């Protein structure tokens, strides 16, 4: 599964994307796994209210299941326009 990071999430984690092998059932489970990895993930995911998630390029919530998913992206609230 590809995991993408944008804006300050990308900066805190230090890379724009990575391939991750995981058996996490939901986005929330994946976040728990990532936070346990290294401080930079802990720093990026410490405040979930400041984060948004897209699964296969669709905005969703942290309960979203990951079965069959190819791409998960984490980023701050959008500021386009």
């Amino acid at each position, binding site marked *: 599964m590809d995991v993408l990071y*944008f804006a300050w999430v990308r900066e805190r984690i230090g890379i724009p994307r990575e391939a991750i092998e995981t058996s996490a059932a939901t986005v929330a489970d994946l976040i728990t796994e990532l936070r346990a990895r290294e401080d930079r993930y802990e720093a990026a995911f410490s405040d979930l209210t400041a984060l948004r998630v*897209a699964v296969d390029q669709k905005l969703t919530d942290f309960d979203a299941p990951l079965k069959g998913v190819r791409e998960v992206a984490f980023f*701050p*609230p*959008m*500021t*386009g*326009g």
Partner: protein
Amino acid sequence: MRISVQDTPFDLGTETTNFAAGHRDMGAIVTFTGVVRDLPDDPLEAMEIEHYPGMTEAALTDIAEQAMTRWSLGDALVIHRHGRLVPSEMIMMVATASRHRKDAFEAAEFLMDYLKSRAPFWKREITAKSADWVAARAEDEDALKRW
């Protein structure tokens, strides 16, 4: 309906004229244009816009399709730039064409409200001293509630 996510500048006049010209049976054309502010007291060097290639186009297409469904529109146009922009450059534009001005106005406002908070763009303001990500505003999220 046309969606364009591009790093190159667009010409507001040309885009608007072409959009209007394509819809001769539509009496009302509304455009919104967002510009990088050029404030004398606030020395912004540049605005950098990051986006999520693939999802950006899908999200904008979805928003525009919703607008076409909810209002009586002949057409809708969304252009949004990414990359590095300097003050006074145009960031983005939307245009709507309808037989009725109310539909054209409301659909353009809807497009803007959704584009602000639901399309994956992130702005960063570069000054001589800092490079800060623009924070999302609660009032932008609240604006979605009226639709």
